[in-house]
């Protein structure tokens, strides 16, 4: 894909002069204007662009918030309140940033679900997928530390619980925890270093995003059929086709984002976080932000400190090896009649774990959390390898063009495509 022939021709003397010295415009044109994109991409392929916009929105709003925020135990909570009340448009900027985190995670979960459903993690896209998992981990670290900065009760006790996870590590755990805190408990020292890291990590994310896009443009985009681009008729240029589709989806996504920002900015948060951090009293019911709930449910499902921590980190780490756990050579779940249902059950499992993570850790909630945690890991460790071996894939179109146009002149192709579409 990256070696496709670009039709870039420099316009004017300066463009030509520049092109001989730094062919930046040639590269941008080749990668983002006439880059061949599969002609059958659906709206699930628009979240990559949306995530780019969210990263920029978070960095821009975060930069201006950092001009007013004071990273000390004494002043942090008050400075956030001052931002909401006194700073010009501070209420708007703060809502953009706080709601933005939720929208960022919403988009990334849909983006990941797309990758799972259409087999975007499979060869030759393993590195692309692993870079994505790294971005996801960095996002989680950034989101977690950003939430800490508000210095409310949920911030404080969330930090306490999550940093205490490291104490589960045998022998060195306690020392690591103290090192993270810089104190003998979570304190202003911890807050200050979280602020530094919260400022740094988005730029690290931006760097990995560049690698992610690079890897994407080497192997090219996957598509709903999971069939690679074979001929010219399988693809359309990125501009205007993919760009316009992205732009429309972005506008719709922004409407949802704006609705939360203007009409329900606190809906996705928790009221306890409007009580200033108090190291002497834990709220009765601590929950993380909604986007961490499935992993929090896995942590609580295991009745052993180290086991719970390992399961929680393992639930994310396992994503890095799924390109090799999945034994099927069919990419798209559209043509995998068995796997498809297991995958939908997996999506249901993640949502269910999210629900259970927000409930108290008692009674049947724990029991169900264990059932779903078991399925979470069984899906990757058992279902992915076994189903790939025993399943008979359904008939596939011969090419992307066949899938779209219903046959490239041959009846067999048309029948196959029709059969594929019927599902």
């Amino acid at each position, binding site marked *: 894909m990256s070696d496709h022939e670009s*039709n870039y021709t420099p316009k004017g003397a300066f463009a030509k002069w520049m092109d001989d010295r730094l062919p930046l415009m040639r590269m941008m044109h080749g990668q983002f204007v*006439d880059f061949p994109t599969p002609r059958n991409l659906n709206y699930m392929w628009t979240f990559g662009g949306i995530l780019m916009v969210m990263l920029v929105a978070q960095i*821009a709003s975060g930069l*201006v918030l950092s001009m007013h925020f004071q990273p000390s135990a004494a002043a942090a909570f008050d400075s956030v309140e001052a931002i909401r009340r006194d*700073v010009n*448009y501070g209420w708007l900027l703060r809502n953009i940033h706080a709601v933005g985190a939720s929208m960022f995670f919403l988009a990334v979960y849909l983006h990941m679900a797309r990758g799972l459903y259409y087999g975007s993690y499979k060869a030759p896209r393993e590195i692309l997928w692993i870079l994505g998992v790294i971005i996801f981990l960095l996002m989680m670290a950034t989101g977690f530390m950003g939430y800490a900065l508000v210095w409310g009760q949920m911030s404080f006790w969330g930090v306490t619980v999550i940093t205490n996870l490291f104490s589960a590590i045998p022998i060195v755990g306690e020392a690591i925890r103290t090192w993270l805190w810089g104190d003998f408990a979570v304190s202003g020292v911890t807050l200050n270093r979280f602020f530094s890291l919260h400022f740094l990590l988005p730029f690290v994310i931006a760097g990995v995003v560049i690698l992610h896009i690079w890897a994407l443009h080497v192997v090219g985009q996957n598509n709903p059929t999971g069939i690679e681009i074979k*001929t010219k008729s399988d693809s359309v240029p990125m*501009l*205007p*086709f993919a760009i316009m589709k992205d732009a429309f989806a972005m506008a719709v996504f922004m409407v949802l984002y704006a609705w939360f920002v203007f009409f329900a900015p606190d809906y996705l948060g928790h009221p306890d976080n409007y009580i200033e951090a108090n190291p002497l009293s834990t709220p009765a019911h601590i929950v993380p932000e909604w986007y961490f709930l499935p992993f929090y449910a896995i942590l609580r499902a295991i009745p052993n400190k180290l086991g719970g921590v390992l399961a929680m980190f393992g639930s994310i780490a396992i994503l890095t090896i799924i390109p090799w756990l999945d034994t099927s050579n069919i990419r798209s779940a559209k043509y995998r009649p068995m796997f498809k249902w297991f995958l939908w059950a997996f999506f249901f499992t993640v949502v269910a774990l999210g629900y259970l993570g927000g409930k108290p850790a008692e009674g049947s909630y724990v029991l169900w959390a264990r059932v779903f945690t078991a399925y979470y890991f069984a899906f990757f460790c058992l279902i992915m390898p076994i189903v790939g071996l025993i399943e008979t894939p359904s008939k596939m179109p011969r090419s992307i063009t066949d899938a779209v146009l219903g046959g490239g002149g041959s009846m067999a192709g048309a029948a196959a495509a029709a059969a594929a579409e019927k599902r």
Partner: protein
Amino acid sequence: MASGTKASDTKPDHGIGAAHDEHGPSRRDFITTAALGWASVGGALALWPFIQQMNPDASTQALASTEVDLAPVKEGQAITVLWRGKPVFIRNRSKAEVEAAKAVSISDLSDRSARNDLMPDSAAASDQNRTKKDNENWLVLVGICTHLGCIPKGQGLSDQRGDFGGYFCPCHGSHYDTSGRIRKGPAPRNLEVPPYEFVSATKIKIG
């Protein structure tokens, strides 16, 4: 888009910037321009909060006025107070200083504007225009040199007060007279008179 192969064989024709032939701009050109125009308006509006957030916030605006009790300041003495983060010079001038300030002819001044925040720029730089009637002994000035923002000398008893007996800025050698008007040196304007009023016989409110 019915024939992808054919389109890519010939010259690329994908809408933006294309398809305005001898018939003039096409409907697509109109839609593209209108959409980009509308997006630019939205972008510009979205930028406004990001710029405005750097201006003084509500808590800063709330501290915009200061009350000062003048009773302890005897004739010939001066005090400096803080108003909006800036030093304000308040001097109880001696009779000789007031007379010296009044005796100056406007034509001798390099800046002939009163520089009184409560008066228009056209007001002449007479001592009357820079003080309050019946309280001519009180001189209230923003103590910031109009050259590059240093604080001039002259408030302290042992300070050098320049060739005209008012204030002297040591940074670049600007001399101000007993009404705070620039007489010599690089400063372009007279020292600013902040908005203030007497709320009682011995108390003023600045701002």
